[in-house]
């Protein structure tokens, strides 16, 4: 069966945004992919509003303190309080950003930002640093990769995470230089160990002050001559980034990663090479690369539609876009993220979330299948994650755990869904066409559920109940995990 125009538009919306939303799901029959793409570009063209959780110098001082000398002056209680404040801040930032992914009209920007959030994976429990890094990413998400790379490399979050504060002339620390090349730009095999050492020397002196601002500490910098990727000079950090950007391998590496993320887990080498070529020639213009992908014909090939496993964030945001809802307890979203293996601002390591099949095991799949029901029917959720110390969204002491158990932790209440808004999407459909249309709106996978089988589970009391039960059942399928 040929892929319908609706499925194609939804394909673009799942990959370049966070899925169709109730408000405009009805209009996806007639608009063309090119028109939709133009809309996505247009709605993401404004500069993003900064998300501020920690503000002002005082917050910066307190939450930004990482300097050993400063830290030693603080009492254990103060340190604990600061870390707790930071964790709480990260929780708020997590919820704020997720809200943005669900409701913002700048869908393309937030989607690209989530991609970069996983690419420039950074795990520091410091709300101020993380807030600044996210702002850098959101401001450059659809702009120029070179500028994004430079700004991220100079962010306090990344310098801290990759130990460049400890990278000094007398005692170089190679971590930052190595990861910039291995994970952020060229990938393994395109530089030597010698290049890592020389780049690390060039990055000596790159650091940040107590306000979290980038500083170049000349007295810690090794100003001798370095040879990096065949070029020789008294290089500083910026020169290294310039040389890295001159490498075609960088364009290929980024293009391939984007292809995997936006198109298919198994990259088509020929397509990647063509895309990378244009990306390189455009001087790393991300808008060019995205357009090359999203308005190409092959992007809409069968093998690319409904064949990617949604990340936990994709899943949660996607449900909430089609089903507008008020959550009774916002913390439920954090619990889901944790149980499903993707907490914003807590990537597993600098390599980011591996994605694909690694999202799925018995526990995550069964929870995914139950989430629509948990959200819409107030079914109890009973998950008790083990304490994970530097991961926990708040310190989980034994006492707290016991107290929560007593209170009935895990029995979170669901959400109230605006079913009127949802029903409007299907308002004009005759009854016999209703289920096929709902199915086509909810699922992207070609192996779609059997409507005859499904029908016996649906609630026939009223049209609205029928629509409700159809959506919830369709969302509770393996197919719904795919986009």
């Amino acid at each position, binding site marked *: 069966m040929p892929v319908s125009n609706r499925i194609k538009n939804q394909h673009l919306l799942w990959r370049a945004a966070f899925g169709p939303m109730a408000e405009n799901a009805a209009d996806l029959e007639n608009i063309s992919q090119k028109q939709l793409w133009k809309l996505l570009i247009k709605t993401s063209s404004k500069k993003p509003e900064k998300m501020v959780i920690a503000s002002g110098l005082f917050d910066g001082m307190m939450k930004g303190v990482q300097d050993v000398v400063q830290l030693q002056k603080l009492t*254990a209680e103060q340190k*604990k309080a600061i870390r707790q404040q930071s964790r709480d801040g990260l929780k708020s930032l997590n919820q704020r950003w997720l809200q943005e992914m669900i409701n913002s009209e700048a869908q393309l920007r937030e989607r690209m930002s989530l991609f970069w959030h996983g690419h420039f994976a950074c*795990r520091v429990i410091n709300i101020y640093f993380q807030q600044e890094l996210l702002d850098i990413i959101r401001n450059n998400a659809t702009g120029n990769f070179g500028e994004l790379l430079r700004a991220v490399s100079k962010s306090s979050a990344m310098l801290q995470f990759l130990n460049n504060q400890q990278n000094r002339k007398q005692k170089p620390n190679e971590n930052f230089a190595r990861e910039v090349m291995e994970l952020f730009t060229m990938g393994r095999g395109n530089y030597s160990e010698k290049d890592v050492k020389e780049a690390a020397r060039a990055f000596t002196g790159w650091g940040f002050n107590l306000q979290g601002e980038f500083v170049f500490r000349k007295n810690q910098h090794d100003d001798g001559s370095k040879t990096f990727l065949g070029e020789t000079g008294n290089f500083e950090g910026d020169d290294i980034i310039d040389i890295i950007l001159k490498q075609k391998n960088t364009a290929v590496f980024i293009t391939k990663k984007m292809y995997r993320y936006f198109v298919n887990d198994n990259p088509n080498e020929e397509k990647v090479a063509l895309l990378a070529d244009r990306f390189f020639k455009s001087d790393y213009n991300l808008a060019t690369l995205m357009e090359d992908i999203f308005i190409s014909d092959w992007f809409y090939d069968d093998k690319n539609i*409904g*064949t*990617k*496993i949604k990340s936990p964030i994709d899943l949660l945001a996607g449900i909430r876009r089609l089903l507008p809802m008020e959550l009774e307890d916002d913390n439920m979203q954090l619990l889901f993220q*944790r149980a499903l*293996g993707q907490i914003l601002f*807590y990537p*597993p*390591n*600098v*390599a980011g979330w591996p994605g694909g*099949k*690694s999202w*799925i*095991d*018995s*526990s*995550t*799949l*069964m929870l995914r*299948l*139950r989430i629509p*029901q948990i959200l*819409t*029917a*107030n*079914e109890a959720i*009973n*998950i*008790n994650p*083990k*304490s*994970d*110390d*530097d*991961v926990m969204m708040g310190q*989980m*002491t*034994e006492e707290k755990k016991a107290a929560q158990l007593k209170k009935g932790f895990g029995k979170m209440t669901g959400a109230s869904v605006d079913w009127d808004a949802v029903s409007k999407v299907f308002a004009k459909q005759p009854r016999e066409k209703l289920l096929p249309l709902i199915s086509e709106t909810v699922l992207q*996978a*070609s*192996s779609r*559920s059997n409507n005859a*089988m499904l029908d016996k*589970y649906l*609630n026939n009391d009223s049209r609205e*109940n029928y629509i*409700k*039960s159809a959506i*919830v*059942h369709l969302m*509770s*399928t*393996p*197919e719904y*995990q*795919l986009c």
Partner: protein
Amino acid sequence: MLIKRKEFLQIGSLATASVFLPKFLKAFEKPAMVPPGNKVVVVIQFSGGNDGLNTVIPVTNDIYYKSRPRLAITKEKALAITGDVGLNPALTSFRELFDDGNLAILNGVGYPNPDRSHFRSMDIWQTASNSNEYVNSGWIGRYLDAQCSGCDKPTQALEIDDILSLALKGENNNGLAFKDAAKLYRTSNEQYFRDLQKAHEPGEETADYLYKTMSGTLSSADYIFQKSKLHPTSEIYPATNLGKDLKTVASLILSDINTRVYYVSLGSFDTHVNQENQQKRLFTELSDAVKAFTTDLKKNNRFEDVLMMTFSEFGRRVTQNASGGTDHGTANNMFFIGGGLKEKGVLNAMPDLQNLNDGDLKHSVDFKEVYATVLNKWLGADDKMILGKTSNYLNFI
């Protein structure tokens, strides 16, 4: 109006999954029966970084007492096992196990260039990677890959938890996590899921993968639930988390389930403040649960087939901090418990407190050697393939 649960997912009959499974999913339905004598490993993870020096205590070492004026455990309070070594006073059952020749202690276990972040170091231990590598599969998961390529038996490695740890995730096979066999059965035994499965037409690879996982989960849930009921244990276990977890493990070990590896955790051992009470509480829970568990196994003549091992992502610093606790450190000790130990007691030298690295212990044994030993000598698996390297084997089993 909300959709009522029973309208949504009708609770299915007690018919087994196999009735509804399409043919291509049925490979799973022949669990290899394992005869008694099946060697089993039970891993106990101490989450948070357990303080090894107050666990296995160097009771005649002056540096230990000087470094920890407030936290050190005196020779009198420690449970003596040799002239120079005592156990934490809360580990009473461990002393009994030692006396019976069923306990071994390996000191100084760690890895080069140790990482002091909980998460990262736990990843390194669970994936058995080097500290500069990022690996997306765990050592037990890769054991599953090696054991059953082409088949799907997530019951070969089970974690007693709501969330599956990285340790049990392989490249192609994953272990299965559950807290309670009956609950797992209830939540997966939905007629709707079985009908979905029946209606699924294989074709697209990723969708098939999801259906295969679902099918494996449903039939495993069935299988585990049936097995767990076969031999309800008569032993009384403490009503703690770990007590309940080990009771579940025991009921399965005593059945003929094909599980080879069980994984449980206890925590949090992240004792920056108020260490004494926290560690005491956790060790009491540990000691009581392990006592019930080992007694149960002995009564049922399975103790020879079971190896328990404990680990933590790191030890703690030698010197106490100013808040009655200790901060993140490096190398640590591991316990091995079982009726089939070849070497018993303290296996190697206590940590050298004179020769430190920035105030932290240097490791003398790489933890990957422990894994290699357990995989090769206990589970009869190809450790080289699973760990991607040749390791020295230890002699305790």
